[in-house]
């Protein structure tokens, strides 16, 4: 992932933003250098020292006032024109009748992603095909969040009661950073997500895998884990296709093993970290809504075996 995502746009929406940002920075920097040079000049040239002339009791010059009013107005007027044109490029109007491709719902503290056309349900890891504009319908299930993948599109709030739309697109394949950019409670820091952009073939394969119901577990510890998933009430919050679990309180876990990260990127999706997450959610993501079920080590291992089979 790029160190300065706002300067590494890979989307038609963010190219314009990045270019304008650089241009504006250069102008602002020039203004700052001008003011700083003037200050340095003044403090050196007009410092009090033996033999320095008396200060000149001048009160001002109207012409100069007009000049340094009109020039900034001119510069800002130029900025205003770009403001309008870049607005159109970064946030184009939605053509009438155009349906969203994704319905994204922000929760405290995870992202629910629903693929409108195919019916795929994902969490925190968004896959998209490259080269296509993706329209997102953005909502919140609770408080205000903000969906921001800086290389792919602008940030925009997910406001309860006020649905928003957002365009993103990826010109080339890769994994791109995303984060919640509006303080939404204790675990705002770990409401991160990623966008995985894939060529059409790979994306279609991913979608097919996501739509498939995972096979029933065959290894003994995985079977035990599947039973624990029900007995320990995990299904009261998490959905897994092919089981009775269908709640959306927590992320859909049907294909949890296909994801790179856990818990809004608070942990990596490895068996060890998944084990730690199940045993000590309060250490990895304190005060998240994931309870500590006081699992024994064996129970946790069995659950890990089950969940890591849900590819």
């Amino acid at each position, binding site marked *: 992932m790029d160190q300065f995502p706002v300067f590494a746009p890979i989307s038609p929406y963010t190219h314009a933003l990045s270019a304008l940002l650089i241009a504006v920075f250069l102008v602002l920097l020039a203004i700052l250098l001008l003011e700083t040079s003037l*200050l340095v000049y*003044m403090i050196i040239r007009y410092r009090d020292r033996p033999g320095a002339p008396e200060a000149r009791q001048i*009160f001002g010059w109207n012409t100069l*006032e007009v000049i340094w009013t009109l020039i900034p107005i001119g510069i800002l007027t130029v900025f205003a024109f770009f403001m309008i044109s870049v*607005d159109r490029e970064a946030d184009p109007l939605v053509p009438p009748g155009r349906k969203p491709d994704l319905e994204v719902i922000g929760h405290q503290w995870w992202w629910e992603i629903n693929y409108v056309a195919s019916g795929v349900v994902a969490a925190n890891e968004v896959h998209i095909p490259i080269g296509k504009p993706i329209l997102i319908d953005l909502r919140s299930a609770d408080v*205000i969040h*903000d969906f921001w993948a800086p290389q792919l599109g602008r940030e925009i709030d997910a406001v309860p009661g006020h649905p928003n739309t957002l365009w993103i697109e990826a010109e080339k394949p890769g994994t791109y950073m995303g984060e919640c950019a509006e*303080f939404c409670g204790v675990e705002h820091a770990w409401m991160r997500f990623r966008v995985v952009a894939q060529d059409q073939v790979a994306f279609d394969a991913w979608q097919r895998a996501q739509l498939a119901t995972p096979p029933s577990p065959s290894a003994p510890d995985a079977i035990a884990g599947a039973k624990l998933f029900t007995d320990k009430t995990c299904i009261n919050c998490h959905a897994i296709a092919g089981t009775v679990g269908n709640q959306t309180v927590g992320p859909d876990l049907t294909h949890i093993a296909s994801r790179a990260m856990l818990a809004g990127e608070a942990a990596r999706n490895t068996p060890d970290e998944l084990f730690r997450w199940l045993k000590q959610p309060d250490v990895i993501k304190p005060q998240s809504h994931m309870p500590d079920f006081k699992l024994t080590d064996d129970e946790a291992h069995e659950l890990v075996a089950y969940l890591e089979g849900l590819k």
Partner: protein
Amino acid sequence: MSQMVEAGVAPAVVTSEREGLLKWVASVDHKEIGILYLISAMAFFLIGGVEALVIRTQLLAPGLHIVSPETFDQMFTIHGTTMIFLFVMPMLTGFSTYIVPLMIGARDVAFPRLNAMSFWIQLFGGIILYFSFLAGGAASAGWFAYTPLSEKAYSSLPGVDFWIVGIACIGIGTLAGAINLAVTILCLRVEGLTIRRLPLFVWMTLVNSFLMIFALPLINAALAMLLIDRFFNAHVFDPANGGSALLWQHYFWSFGHPEVYIMILPAFGIISEVIPVFSRKPIYGYEFVAASSVAIAFLSFTVWAHHMFAVGMSHVANLAFGVASMTIAVPTGIKIFNWTATMYGGRIRFTTAMMFAVSFLFTFTIGGLSGISFAIFPLDWQLTDTYYLVAHFHYVLVGGSVFGIFAGFYYWFPKFSGRLLSERLGKWQFWLTFIGFNLTFFVQHILGLAGMPRRVFTYPDLPGWQVMNVISSIGAFMLGFAVVLFVWMIFDALSKGEIAGDNPWEAWTLEWATTSPPPPENFDRVPPVHGRRPLWDLAHPDRADELVAGA
């Protein structure tokens, strides 16, 4: 012709015969109340600073557990609330309360008892706010308390209620203080001191009073409705039950934006006094500095939704607020240019006050320029809610208001106490502050461009994030040390500082025409006022300002 005029007629004030603590508690003298404001604000500055250092310590490395996320959230919420409502505003009010009556040749403010009430209710509000730490935890929904996060459903503990009541008390005190100062300036000026001759610090205080008069009721209305939501199970700002989360934002920012100008205008006033005095010449473009302040005050009510560019307003609304926000940069720029031009042809004395004033011109400009990058609203969509935003507002608030406050302290402390702060230590304190401040906040621009969001208790180990956080934290500790040094310098000066005399800076406004500190009735005799610099005119009758300017 030096005709001495009787001191301006003021309401009869009974000078207190009491001694000690009771004298301070019962005082209705504007000078004592001013000192109370300064002491209280300084105490809250230190407390708010500790909160900041907790934040910066927790962020030294990714994955630290120095404080819990809930505690961290309380820290940044209360840090912001404290610095704004309990430090910057009362500190500037303290300067105005002490200095404005002196600058206009008056004996006291128009309503001395109201003045006392303003201070004590503000302090009471601060105590209520901090009591929340003992009552289940302070508010942790951020200093602007967006709904529905700040509603009962998501903030079930009473911290937000204490926050609401605390701010309401502070708001009432501030409003009363604003009315008091406005009436004082309009009604109690000494003979000859027309509006066009007002010292710019007085002018800024007057304009600022109007800003407070129109802006504070807006947050009081919003707070009242939030309290009704929380206490009476109403849903004005609760979208789950028909209310509007965005209505809160509109209401809050319609106050919140004028609020930031409330925090900077008096600092503009201080700079407008300090730079001319230490350049040894009058302010350049007085009328333009004054008029641009009025323009800023009006415009500040038209820009509020630039805090909401990312919520999904219409293109038209974004454009309107973007254009308005850029417009407000023009009068601000005019001031910067006039202050800079004031130094032209001068004979500059680099006292510590002047050093803070000059560096204000540098750091506030950086903050103002980064503000323009936000006004261009599509850019806001890549910058807002990151550390770039945190850098921006600290450059204008600390690099602006706080540097102005330091300048004001070094300038007027001799008048308050009769003693000079040590210029030798002052140089050290200045450089520690300047370097510490820039170290803390400049790197945050870059951190924000790297994508780090604000209000996060920890962060992933992305390239460069930790290094930049460490640099920022080092700067913060340096800044903290500089503030502690300043407090020590105050005590040191009070006990063994050099005696200041009436007018140690050879300045020209009326507060320097009396002893340091002034007597209870402020003046024995007020010098005649025939221009903007009465003491200059007195010392140079053949080159009096209005003779020279032909006014």
